[in-house]
């Protein structure tokens, strides 16, 4: 009941402005009987509403939109971008675990993320993702670090931009480029860098359903004794079902190469409280060489 009330409240708080019906003006009530002159009926029609473009079909500005923000590479590499620019700031937390008992291996990784985007204009967006703190806890058989939080490191930072290339009433597409800056300090003597070029598509025939896709190609390379350049590839398709302005369910299917190959579904629940967007996401590889048992993430964004 509380949830329903809260849902109703949220729905009222930031519901999209409904098209108002013409007001009906009731005639003044009088006891006098008069005969009004017969006049011709005048029909006033509102000017036709412009057909909204795809990016305008998002149900609520505060709700996170686009592909799920959770994946298999550093910072936001190989993650699908949205095709519609927006300005926002956010904070997130990732947690991933590999428990490979037959090989006596375990790894738990966590990152505290700060991210943001700035829509310079309706077609252009600059964005950044920074893993401000990166914890890695790795177990080799029975040998492991003394404590889980014993050695936090500065994590990866990506900067990028996207430019919408086309938009119709139901389809938008953008090209994005992001670079991995050598900020991560977890490898003594080596800093990672790289870049990724991608194209994202958003199909929004209605306000409650978005089908999105992304394809990207890039590389990473180490600045240090062992550069070990590596190609990154990703293809992603997914859908966001948004029955309410305060809730969205997203399911993505992605595959590619990010160190290891992966083919994985990713699911997220998105909520909105006023202009605060919340995303709770999880992914697990179904095929490929990626070893994660699960990666989960949480995001909070504030739409500007």
């Amino acid at each position, binding site marked *: 009941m509380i949830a329903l009330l809260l849902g109703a409240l949220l729905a009222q708080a930031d519901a999209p402005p409904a098209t108002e019906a013409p007001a009906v003006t009731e005639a003044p009530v009088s006891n006098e009987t008069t005969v009004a002159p017969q006049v011709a009926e005048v029909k006033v029609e509102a000017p036709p509403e412009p057909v909204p473009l795809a990016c305008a079909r998002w149900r609520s500005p505060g709700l996170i939109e686009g592909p799920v923000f959770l994946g298999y590479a550093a910072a936001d590499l190989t993650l699908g971008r949205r095709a519609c620019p927006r300005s926002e700031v956010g904070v997130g937390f990732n947690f991933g675990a590999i428990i490979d008992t037959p090989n006596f291996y375990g790894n738990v990784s966590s990152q505290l993320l700060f991210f943001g985007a700035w829509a310079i204009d309706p077609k252009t967006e600059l964005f950044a993702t920074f893993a401000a703190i990166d914890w890695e806890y790795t177990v080799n058989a029975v040998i492991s670090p003394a404590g889980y939080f014993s050695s936090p490191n500065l994590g990866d930072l990506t900067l990028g931009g996207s430019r919408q290339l086309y938009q119709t009433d139901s389809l938008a597409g953008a090209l994005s480029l992001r670079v991995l800056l050598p900020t991560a300090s977890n490898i003594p003597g080596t800093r990672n860098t790289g870049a990724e070029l991608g194209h994202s598509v958003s199909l929004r025939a209605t306000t409650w359903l978005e089908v999105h896709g992304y394809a990207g190609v890039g590389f990473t390379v180490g600045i*240090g004794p062992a550069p070990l350049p590596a190609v990154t590839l990703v293809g992603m398709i997914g859908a966001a079902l948004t029955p309410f302005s305060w809730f969205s369910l997203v399911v993505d299917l992605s595959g590619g190469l990010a160190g290891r190959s992966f083919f994985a579904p990713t699911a997220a629940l998105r909520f909105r409280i006023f202009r605060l967007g919340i995303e709770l996401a999880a992914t697990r590889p179904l095929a490929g060489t990626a070893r994660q048992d699960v990666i989960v993430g949480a995001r909070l964004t504030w739409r500007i």
Partner: protein
Amino acid sequence: MNRIGAVVAAVLVAAFGGGCAKVGCIGGDATCKVEAPCPKLTLTCDGASAGQLEVFTIAAGMPDARPGGTNALAAQGDVVLRNAFTTVVISGLGNQNYLDITGGSLIDLATRAGNTDAVNEIFPVTGILPGDEPRYTSLEIIDQRPDFVAVQLKGALDGHLDMPIYTRYELKPCDPGVRVRTEVLNASPDNQYWALADGFYWSKREPLPFTAGKGQGFAHPSFELTTINSAYQTFPFLTFGFHNGENASYAAVSCTDGSLTGFNSEVVSTAGVTPRVAPPRGWLAFDRFLAVTDGRDVDAAARVALKVREQVLGEKFVTLTGRVERAGGIPLGAERDATLLISEGSLGQDAEALTPWSQALTDKSGAFTLTVPAGKSYVLTVSAFGRTVAERAVDAPGADTDLGTLSVVDPTVASVRFEVTEAGGNNVLDSEIFVVPADDETKSSTSGSFYGEYTTCSPWLGAPPGPSPACNRVLVQQGVANAELPRGKYHLYAYHGPFWSLGHQLFTVDATVATTVTFQLERLVGLQPTGTLSADLHVHGAASFDSSIPDFDRVLSFAASELDVIVATDHDVVHDYGAIVSQLGFSSRMTTITGVETTGHVPWMRIPNYGFPLVIGHYIFWPLRFDPTQPRNGAPFDEQIEPGNLFTDAARRFTTSTGVIQLNHPWAVSEFGRDLGFPRAIKLDLRKDLPASDDGSDGRGVYVRKPKGAEFFNDAHHSQEVMNGSQNSELIQYRQFWFYLLNQGRVKTGTANSDSHSLVDSTVGLPRNLVWAGTDPGPLFDIDKFDNAIHAGRVLGTSGPIIEATVDGATGLKSFGLEPFAPLAGGKLHLKVTTAPWATVPEVRVVVNGQVVKTLAAAPLPTTPDYAFSDQLYVAYDGELALSELLDGVTGDAWVVVEAGPAFPATADLAGGLNGAPDGMPDTTDNNGDGKIDKDDVPKGDDYGPLADPPFPAETDPGFHFANITRNGYPYAFTNPFLLDRDGTPGFNGPGVKGGRP
């Protein structure tokens, strides 16, 4: 967009335009060179010495290339780095030893002057898994004389081609040791947690690690495979050295950092860089100096380590000298007489609060030298006979200091000369003296150890793994031995094998005197059956990686136990005692056979429904050719292959067509994750019959299958140990497995061996095999006859009792053995059991198809005073048993085994199989004494066990004296089976797990 482009351009410039300085072979190409190790270390010497640098690969015709010392392994194909001071041997690719799967390990390190190698094996590791050691694929010799010579190895962590590892061993002209650098790169996509270090393989009874850390020294936290993480410590350097009289003392010290990190135990140590996560593209490097000296103590090596630290870290050290003087002018020089430990701290502090820095022995005059960091306060302790006898403070020496004379009063000791002769004549006897406290006060006051390491002994007359005197045992050569005994009251025993009387005296030491104790021993005529050879088929000496008893003492111990035939079965190396046998004049009456005990080290084998990799345990093979020019002296390499493959390789190396394959201690508990017996390793379920072939369901299929490329099945061994060790600790389980195989119709000869590694752990020849071989030891020994007797099961296993047993066969009287025969209708089992008066048994049992069907109480013991030390034979049983009675209720073919010994305790099978299920193997006794065997008898956290050893017998118990010389062993004997062919079909058909019963 222009701004985005600028950022991208900046990144690309950063990535490719600079900051990519190479570090040795990290990210390097095929021609890369590991960086030179220890660049800050500069050691100098005179010009003549500097000119002696050399590097070469051992080839045929280089018999002197192998250093001296009992752990030396160098063989053809290995690489030698040598200067005027040091010899370093790196195993060539393909020359695997022990844990090293490809070669490339440091296997020998000796001084040129002393030429003694005490290293088993040192190799880099990144953890404790098989995949944490290198699989090298290339070896390159770098000859840059006169500056340096080096060996560089390249490869990858085993099974991880994306984790390349490179090691460079470098020797400069004046180095008293070898410089080593290892570089390892994580080119995988996953984080790795690496503890890059040198792994030092001691394997018990070998060099002891000493680390200069708080609460450390020789003491280190105990751990198991699953608790290693908690055992990691940091220390400025690691030293290690023998305690068997061989002069070799070593140090490992970082060339770049202030400390090493690792764990230490008597089995294995590691010392390396701080463990850390290596992310993808991450790499680690480890520079260290491995020093070798001719010393017998820690200080000889610590001195070099501190010198390295002085250059690398600027740490100053000082030398403390002094002299120990003992009351009565007692000689000095041995660890027993005086050993000094110096620890940072102050008097009165607990050992955990002290930081031991060095340990030293004195020379014969009592003079000692200790090397320690300058400016610290120390506590100096003196120990004798394994006990601390004096201590004093040494305050902050800022310069070299003479500490003067340390007078030591305790303990009062008597110098005893032991004389052992044959009664009724002047024949001197090689024998063994056992010194056992006769009261609790003596036991308490003489209990000692080498700083808590090895075995605690009462009295502690010498390091247990070493030469005589060791622990409380003294070897007597040509009838004479000398020893010092501390104050106390003792049982003194003189032993010359189970078929002789046991000499005994109560002896009290209460003053510093010199005295002589004489024993006269008598052969117990008629005890050992005519025509039998006393044979110990499983014996270790210093050639084994877990034994350091010198060959001289080892062979003398054979004579002391009056053995005729000994198979040298050192771990993973063939060894030949022939030269020492000749030197001691035993050639005419003793035969030693060259064999090997293969010893799996690297877990790899998988069985259905079990998650952990296994090794195949231990097997013995003989006869093999002793060839010191070959890796492992000609032994087969035994890692990562199934038994059938191992048998195939070994059989090709047999020097006769009658070679023997023996399964050792089949159900022994694994040590450090390494399985010791194949059946237990594969979790064989003894409740079920063996399948005809591998059906893939469980370990039973693995046991019976013939692996790919093999000419033998995995169960093709010829004999199996039923008795192993003087204590008989796992007799119940080995016996059970042997019975299981007999029930399966897979008949193997049961054997009884000491598996002795020293004078202390087990007495060689206790137990032993009496083999009806039809040949004599010495120059006329016919090994084929001997081996054929083993194959035929003409063996009685015994630690003393003699079982004479025959059965009426349809064609005449039959002895036990593996040849089936039809029993005579109405036939009998004729049985006589005889023992020495000091090795009596309370009962005799007849086992048919795995069940005891008859228990015969032994005859009452004579009440004659000191009967145990008389020359009277004890006849425990002499009679006949009708076969019909023994075979009642049994259908089909049957086997009969006779055994003599104490009753076994009640046992139960609580677990041990896959997923914690029972496995048909007794594993638990009534340990809490509540009259039932259940989980309450099992320690918390375990599923089953233990099988408790029997309590030590009281002094009034007939088994008391036997227990005194076997560390709580008991007399026991068993025959090999009579195989009764009763079903009319050819051969012996196993009755199955039900033993032919409903």
